[in-house]
């Protein structure tokens, strides 16, 4: 192992990450982020169980800019992990392993997660306007 001049295979530095690889690491990232995000869910449920006062202060925080930013990231992470998770289940069943299918379903996953995120926020704002 002393030779320094041997040709090396293309290193990670010059390797363009395919979209499917990017989505794969994002799946893991969103999974860890959602695990951390369960704290928000627990906190909200605890606030609701704690009575009107604690619930109102929780709602006030969630309605603030910072609270909404957390919820926006949270909802996108959730819908991305959901959509890509369904793709993983399809793979587990043995389908869609061809290169063009993986490419196509990558875009479907992205479009679905963006669409569901927008939809849930539109629903939230529609019900605000109606109330």
């Amino acid at each position: 192992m002393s030779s320094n001049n041997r040709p090396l295979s293309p290193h990670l530095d010059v390797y363009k990450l395919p979209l499917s690889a990017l989505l794969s690491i994002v799946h893991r990232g969103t999974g860890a982020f959602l695990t951390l995000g369960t704290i928000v869910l627990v906190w909200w449920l605890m606030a609701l169980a704690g009575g009107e006062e604690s619930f109102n202060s929780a709602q006030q925080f969630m309605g603030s800019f910072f609270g909404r930013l957390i919820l926006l990231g949270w909802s996108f992470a959730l819908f991305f992990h959901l959509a890509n998770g369904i793709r993983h289940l399809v793979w587990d069943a043995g389908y869609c392993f061809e290169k063009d299918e993986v490419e196509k379903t990558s875009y479907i996953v992205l479009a679905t997660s963006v669409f569901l995120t927008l939809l849930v926020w539109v629903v939230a704002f529609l019900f605000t306007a109606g109330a």
Partner: protein
Amino acid sequence: MSLRSPLGQAKGLGSAKEGLHHWWAQRVTAVALIPLTIWFAFKVAVLSMSDYKTVLECIGSPWSAALIVSLIVAAFYHAALGMQVIYEDYIGGKAVRIAAIMGTNLLLFLLAAASIIAVVRIAVGG
């Protein structure tokens, strides 16, 4: 010392018997979480600006509470299994790895217990 090759020793013994359980449990919880998370996300969106009483009644109705408890069990189990895989992939030291997995499992159990208690309390109107 045995003269049999490692492959020869392992052949015919089958799997380690429980290796599939982790993988399978992650899939079962994933399937359960598909309808549960969609339902919950849109329910919270609809309730986002409602007052305390409305939210309390909506979350605390028997079917709602049952679905949320199911969601909590599936989600925290799924999270624990997923975090374990991440630790196993990235943490080299055995002691740190085991401590991270165990710590996460215990913490997630506590969070799950806390949220189930909260939902039960909301449902029975404590």
